C-alpha cells in the first residue's frame, strides 16, 4: 500500500477544551453547510452556531494554533455526515481526545487522518485542569506507542483498532485494501 495522505505518528500541540458530553454533528457543522459538493473549505463553518458566543473556547484568541480538541463523552453523536471530521480537519485539528466517541463519527474521523483518542476520567480531568492553568499547555500523542499525556507528565496508554492504526501510521486509506480483495468479493458474489 502506498501513502495517500500525511502519515500520523506523533503529535505534540496546544489544545482547546470543550468539556461537554454528547456533542452532536449538527453542532460540529450545521446542516445548512452540507449543500457543498466539496470536502474542502468547511473549517470556517466548524461549530458555526456556537462560535459566535464570546465564551466559546474555539472563538478565543488562545485557541489559534491548537491541533487537539479535548471533548466530553459520546463526541460526534447523531448524523453520519463526514462533513464533521472534514470541518474539524479544515479548522486545523489532527486529534480529538474524549471520554468516548459515537460510532460513525469515529469511523469517519479515522478515514480523514483525524485521530480519536479515548482517555479515562482521571486523565481527562487532568488535561482540562492543566489547560485552565496554562493556555499553552501541550498534549503529546504517540500513535505507534499508543500513549497520550501532557508534555513532561506521565503518559497513559490508549486503545485503537490495530488496522486503523496501521492505516494512519502509514498514511494509507482503506479503499486500496478493499480493492486488493476484489477476487474474494467476486467469489462471494458467485457463491450467493
Amino acid at each position: 500500500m502506498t501513502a495517500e495522505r500525511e502519515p500520523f505518528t506523533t503529535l505534540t500541540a496546544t489544545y482547546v477544551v470543550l468539556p461537554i458530553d454528547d456533542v452532536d454533528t449538527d453542532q460540529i457543522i450545521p446542516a445548512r453547510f452540507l449543500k457543498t459538493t466539496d470536502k474542502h473549505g468547511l473549517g470556517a463553518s466548524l461549530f458555526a452556531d456556537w462560535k459566535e458566543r464570546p465564551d466559546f473556547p474555539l472563538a478565543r484568541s488562545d485557541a489559534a494554533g491548537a491541533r487537539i480538541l479535548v471533548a466530553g463523552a459520546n463526541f460526534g453523536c447523531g448524523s453520519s455526515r463526514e462533513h464533521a471530521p472534514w470541518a474539524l480537519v479544515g479548522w486545523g485539528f489532527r486529534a480529538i481526545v474524549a471520554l468516548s466517541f459515537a460510532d460513525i463519527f469515529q469511523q469517519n474521523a479515522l478515514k480523514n487522518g483525524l485521530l480519536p483518542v479515548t482517555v479515562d476520567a482521571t486523565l481527562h480531568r487532568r488535561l482540562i485542569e492543566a489547560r485552565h492553568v496554562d493556555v499553552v499547555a501541550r498534549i503529546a500523542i504517540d500513535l505507534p506507542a499508543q500513549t497520550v499525556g501532557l508534555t513532561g507528565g506521565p503518559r497513559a496508554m490508549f486503545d485503537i483498532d490495530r488496522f486503523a492504526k496501521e492505516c494512519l501510521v502509514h498514511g494509507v486509506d482503506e479503499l486500496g485494501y478493499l480493492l486488493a480483495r476484489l477476487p474474494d468479493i467476486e467469489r462471494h458474489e458467485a457463491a450467493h
Partner: protein
Amino acid sequence: MTPSTLFEKVWRDHVVREDAGAPAVLYVDLHLVHEVTSPQAFSGLRARGLRVRRADRTFATMDHSTPTLPRHLAVVDPQAQTQLRTLERNCADFGVPLYGLDSEEQGIVHVIGPELGLTQPGRTIVCGDSHTSTHGAFGALAFGIGTSEVEHVLATQSLLQRRPKTMQVRVDGTLPWGVGAKDIALAIIAKLGVGGATGHVLEYRGSTIDALDMEERMTLCNMSIEAGARAGMIAPDGTTFRWLEGRRFAPKGDAWRAALARWRELRTDEGASYDATVTLDATRLEPMITYGTNPGMGIAVTGHVPSPGSAPTTAEGAAIAKALDYMQLAAGAPIAGQRVDVVFIGSCTNSRLGDLRAAAGMLRGRQVASGVRVLVVPGSKAVKRQAEAEGLDAVFREAGAEWREAGCSMCIAMNGDQLRPGEYAVSTSNRNFEGRQGRGGRTLLASPLTAAAAAVAGRVVDPRTMMGGAS
C-alpha cells in the same frame, strides 16, 4: 451448531473475508444514495478512475434539500440546485438508477426503499445517512455510513467492518390506548441515553413488537441510532411477508417461495445470547415527548421537566441545565401546557400512511389553533397519492395545515422549511438537537398523534384527552 442471533445470521452470510488483525470485508446487498452525502464519493471514484462496481445494487433519490412546495418553485438556493444537478450527472455518468424529482417514486430514501420492495429480510443495506437503521424493521442489517465508505461501497460493493456487539431490547405487553411506536422509541432512548447503545446492534423482540405493523416497526428501528446503535433489527414474520409481497423489486413466483423459506430462518435461535439486554413493560408506557436538546431527554407528556439537581451525576445535571437554557423551559414545570408555534408531521421516522392517518384522525373536524403553523409532509410521492386517495389532504387543509410535497423538509431544515429563532415546534422527526430544525429553533419530539393534538390545542397536550372524535 451454536445457537445464533438474527444479527449473527445476517452478518455471517455477508462476511467475504476476515483476516487476523483486520476488520471483516462485509458484502453490501443494497446501497441507497442521496444528494447530500454522495458528491465527494463520486469525485473520489473519478480521481481514481474507478467505476460503480454494481450499479444494479445501487439506487439514488433526492430528498434532503428538495423543495416541498409545488415543484415549479425554485430549489432553495443555487448551491442546493448544484447539489441536485451533481447527483443527476453522477447517476447518468455511472449508470446508477435515480428516482429524481420527476420520478413518481421519489421520496425520502428510507421511505421509498421499503415501498419499492428493495428492502428485504436478510439483506445488508447501507446509505450515507444515519437513519438507514430504519430498514432493520424487515430483518435486514442496515446502517448509516460516511462519505468515504459510500465511495468504498460504490467501488467494491463492500465495506470494512468490525463486528458490533448485540443488545436485545425486549418489549412485552399490550400498548395502552393512545401510545404507539414513537412512544416506545422515545422511552427506550430515555432509558438507554443517547450513547447507551454505542457499539451495539439492537434486536427488538417481545409480544409488543410482534403486534406492531411494518410502518410502526420502521419508526422504532429508525430511532435506534438515537440511542447510539448503528442498527436495529426485527425478525421477519408474516406481517413482514404480507407487506412485501407484490412490491416492485420483491421476488416473484418461485423466487418468492424460495425467499420465504430462507427468510423464515432469520430468527434468533433458542439459547442464543446477547452482549446486553434491556427490557420495557409496554403496559406502563404513556405518550412521550422530549424537553431537551437530545432525543434521550424524553418524558411522559403528563410529566414534569426535570431539574438539573435531580440528575444522578453532575455531568447529566450540567447537560440538563444547558438544555433547559437553550429550550427556555423551567425545571419542575409540567410539559403539558407549553406553548407551540409550529407542528411538523413528517420525516423518515413518521411520514408514512399510518402516521398521516393518525394525525388526520386527530385533526378531522377540528381547527389548528390560531397562530400555529402546521406542515404535513408525506414521506414519498406514493404516500402522498395514497393519502390523497383517502382524502387525508382535505382533512389537513380544512383544519388549516399545509399539505406539502415529499421530502425530508423541516426535519433537517436544508430546503427552506425551517423554524425561526425562538420558535417551539412539536415534531414527529427524530432529532431535537440545537438548531436542527432551523437556527435558534426549539424542537419537542413526539408521535404523530401527540403532534396533531398540539396543533389543535396550540400547546403541548396529552392526546388521550382529545381522542374519540371532535368535541
